[in-house]
């Protein structure tokens, strides 16, 4: 009796929160309702005895994917007007996709039948007596190992693609090179001068800033502008000096 009650509680909350995801106005609230939906779906998995899948659903979808979503949603100032701009333009496409999906669901619902072979396989197999995690592992790494590897490769390609798309090197960006910092000796960055009284360090031909980071003396492996390299900053600097 209790599982049935729990099932309906989880299912109702799941459906309600799924509806709320697409109907609330605030995008952060929408993301939160999606997380609620995931947690309830995990509850349903738990009721079905698939505890491994349930925990994975919470850990990966609710715990990792949605966090990144929330990051974007929170930092983005999404205006409702902006969101509603394209509605009329995209409506026909959306309707077509929705229509195709509904037809497919109906087709599946009509022809749904569980393969009797599989039922026999499961009722006789030793998988029945071992835990969820082990059963999944046994199937995943034996029967479907090739598909599993292909999935991994696709994810790897997607990851590399995302990194390539977002990575752009800014030559003016000064980044820390820790190995270089450790290699640095005092005489590379320090000059000791005896400054006579009533003189400044400039008068005797020294400069105060460290040698290496002094403008135009940057070493080749650093990210700063190279000697003789006319980047934006050098031009601006020259302009400023001319004005002076």
């Amino acid at each position, binding site marked *: 009796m209790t599982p049935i009650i729990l099932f309906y509680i989880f299912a109702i909350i799941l459906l309600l929160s799924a509806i709320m995801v697409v109907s609330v106005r605030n995008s952060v609230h929408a993301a939160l309702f999606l997380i609620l939906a995931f947690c309830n779906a995990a509850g349903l998995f738990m009721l079905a005895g698939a505890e*491994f899948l349930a925990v994975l659903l*919470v*850990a990966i979808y609710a*715990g990792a994917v949605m*966090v990144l979503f929330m990051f974007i949603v929170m930092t983005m100032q999404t205006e409702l007007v902006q969101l509603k701009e394209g509605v009329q333009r995209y409506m026909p496409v959306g309707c077509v996709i929705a229509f195709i999906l509904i037809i497919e669901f109906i087709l599946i619902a009509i022809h749904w039948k569980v393969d009797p072979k599989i039922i026999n396989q499961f009722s006789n197999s030793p998988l029945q007596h071992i835990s969820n995690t082990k059963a999944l592992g046994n199937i995943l790494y034996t029967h479907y190992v090739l598909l599993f590897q292909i999935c991994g490769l696709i994810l790897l390609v997607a990851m590399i693609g995302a990194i390539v798309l977002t990575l752009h090197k800014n030559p003016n960006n000064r980044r820390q090179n820790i190995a270089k910092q450790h290699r640095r000796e005092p005489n590379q960055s320090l000059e000791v001068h005896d400054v006579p009284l009533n003189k400044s360090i400039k008068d005797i031909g020294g400069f105060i800033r460290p040698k290496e980071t002094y403008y135009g003396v940057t070493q080749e492996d650093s990210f700063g502008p190279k000697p003789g390299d006319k980047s934006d900053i050098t031009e601006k600097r020259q302009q400023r000096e001319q004005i002076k």
Partner: protein
Amino acid sequence: MEHFFFHTLAGSIVLIVLKTLALLVPVLVGIAYLTWLERKVLAAIMLRKGPNVVGPFGLMQPFADAVKMIFKETVIPAKANRVLFFIAPILVFTLSLIAWAVIPVNNGWAVANLNIGILYLLAISSLGVYGTLLAGWASNSKYSLLGAMRATAQMISYEVSIGLIIVSILLLVGSANLNDIVLAQRRIWFFLPMFPMFIIFFISCLAETNRPPFDFAVGESELVAGFFVEYSSMAFGLFFLAEYGNMILMSAIISILFLGGWLPPLDYVPFTWIPAPFWLIIKILFCLFCFIWVRSAFPRYRYDQLMRLGWKIFLPFSLIWVVLTAGFLMSTGIGIYGGAG
């Protein structure tokens, strides 16, 4: 009586509530006294006396603090999102407590002896990010939002290496049940064969709980108090309690994964006189002392250094360690049938 507890629905619910109370009341008292312990240890390191006015040795200080906290006024920022503003601290505190459900304090003594206990812990700790994120966003303040972003980025980066370290332990044990993990350490505690992972896990736990030297979320000099800067009264108190609760939880996880949980160091007479749960408590206290010790001994990291440490050093290192562990177990055939210990 036995029939009521084990064979009726109401009885089983009462039993679960009793079990939960038996675990959570000591945890809550522990949280209260951890604040006292931290102040005492910090004071001792800095050659001060620490709290010594309220009660003998300042032992009533946590309760004085609690009373003060409760009687303060709750201030809600004018443009805050009220619902989320209140949900966030509750969420953080609840999540720090429900993870205790799977922690075994003796052989088989856990509120829920889950087969996937360690995965449950991972899932709960990955949900903990939301409290931080929501608190920062709902207070509608720049400092809060920046603090929340930092804290969240930090927590999800270090979760990755924590997950990989847990994988290498699972390889050794062959089970995700925390009880089995402790029993597998009967011959040797895992911190010896897995020493580098033990250190990385400890550092990752520091980062995961936003403790110094990784306390960027609360970097006082830059962000005032990070994501909970707008919180006052008991709402602030809940964040505070959650932080200390997470510290105790992480110490318990370290003790279970690496320090042999409730097992005595040697299975001989003087050690076996002390009851098993006390060994777990002693190990938790040792880890907590290290947490506090690190706080007073090291200056705060810089944020980009933290990210570099997490992604470029810990992640590859723990990944290689997983491969090495798996290779070692396959070549020697130790762990294939479950249990290397």
